[in-house]
């Protein structure tokens, strides 16, 4: 069992269990081009999350289901390693990973110029090597970098971040503990140039005012993370 001692004297902006301000992100690190075989790849550490993404394509597919006459098809697979969570996870897809794969593909799709590659398949493989809250957002953020690393033409680089409600406060980027014990979790992905929202889910209880505040906060978080994405690509490819 994990026993977490919270001091009563923590007040105001520093009231979170790990001492972060309400609008403070966990430490974030992104590296592009980390795999040999994949056409593009990225590795991301975000708090205790460790995520690896590989992209293959655009490539020919022999499978009818993965063909569209007028554009490329995105197949996305979000997967957790058996050792990524406290209790060993059985290998293979489950209902949660199926849903995350679907919304992740939908979150990334608006940014990709799919119509350039009719009938082609683009594979996005997201591996959660270690999970500590917020893996779906971290996966989307890393996937965009891997897509760019693969040279897939994009309008913008989608970026994701969650906000939520913990101890009656709207906070940014929930940790695993905050996610479990909090009152709401709201993952958001945006295209940072237009600010448009490509992923939005909500789980928990928020009134309209709190909801709006949470969306705003998550979008701010996304904008901050977007810079780290760009730095990762600059580091690999130069300015």
């Amino acid at each position, binding site marked *: 069992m994990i026993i977490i001692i919270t001091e009563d004297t923590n007040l105001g902006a520093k009231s979170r269990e790990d001492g972060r301000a309400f609008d403070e992100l966990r430490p974030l690190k992104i590296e592009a081009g980390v795999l040999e075989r994949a056409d593009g790849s990225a590795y991301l550490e975000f708090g205790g999350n460790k995520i690896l993404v590989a992209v293959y394509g655009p490539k020919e597919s022999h499978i009818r289901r993965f063909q569209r006459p007028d554009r490329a098809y995105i197949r996305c697979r979000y997967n957790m390693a058996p050792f990524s969570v406290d209790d060993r996870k059985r290998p293979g897809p489950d209902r949660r990973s199926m*849903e995350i794969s679907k919304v992740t593909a939908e979150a990334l799709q608006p940014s990709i110029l799919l119509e350039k590659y009719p009938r082609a398949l683009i594979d996005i493989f997201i591996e959660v090597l270690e999970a500590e809250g917020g893996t779906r957002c971290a996966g989307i953020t890393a996937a965009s970098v891997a897509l760019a690393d693969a040279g897939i033409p994009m309008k913008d680089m989608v970026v994701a971040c969650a906000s939520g409600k913990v101890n009656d406060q709207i906070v940014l980027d929930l940790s695993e503990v905050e996610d479990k014990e909090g009152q709401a979790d709201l993952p958001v992905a945006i295209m940072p140039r237009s600010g*448009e929202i490509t992923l939005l889910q909500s789980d928990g209880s928020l*009134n309209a005012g709190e909801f709006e505040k949470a969306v705003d906060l998550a979008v701010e978080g996304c904008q901050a993370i977007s810079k780290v994405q760009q730095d990762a690509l600059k580091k690999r490819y130069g300015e």
Partner: protein
Amino acid sequence: MNVVPEITRKSITDLINNLERPDSRALDEYREISLETGVISKAEGSARVKIGSSQIIVGTKSQLGSPFPDTPNVGVIMTNSELLPMAAPEFEPGPPDEKSVELARVTDRCIRESQMVDLEKLCLVEGKKVWMIFIDLHILDYDGNLMDAAVLGAVAALLNTRIPKATMVDDEIVIDYENKEPLPIREKALMCTFAKIGEQMVLDPSLAEEEILSARLSIGMTESGNICALQKGGATPLTKEEIMNAVKITEEKTKELMEYLP
């Protein structure tokens, strides 16, 4: 995968851009809704819901089981959905695909996060025995907007559910099928789904609209106006204004929907 002819797509989009719809509804108007409960005697709770021609039967069953290790003192709700091949020519027999899984999971979240069912009252022996309530969504006819129908049907079925009274007598659980009790229900929640087509967001998309939507937004809301679940779908982004506007409409429309509940 249905390919919609470009001409159809354009004509519906033009209509909606002019604030009209193919079936003459207002943009924020539901199709005809019908809801019956208690339609399946062998289920512990059941409902048949129709929105337009979309039709779902929802059945509930209770079963004693073990709680999840991290929540030892609360009962369990399991929501399962079958997009039956009967419901649409493009549905095939087989295990649930991601569309079906999303439908079940969003329905589940709307019910769970609204805390509609007081799950602590479904615990018999902490850490050992709790009631598990299975909600099965049986999709019979697919004419668009399954999300709202699924939540409406599931909530109605839960309100209709009667489970046997279980008591502890000398360390033994006695289940009394002669005395059935309703579930411990608190504040209810329902769901409103919008489709973005052209420049507009329309409520309760029909099949024809769903086939050409660019984005989908489903909002689950409690009677007191709290958002308990929300799911964006589709391959096009939404602006914050579009989303906040949908939230506003949902506040009003959930109230309307609540009136169908038994």
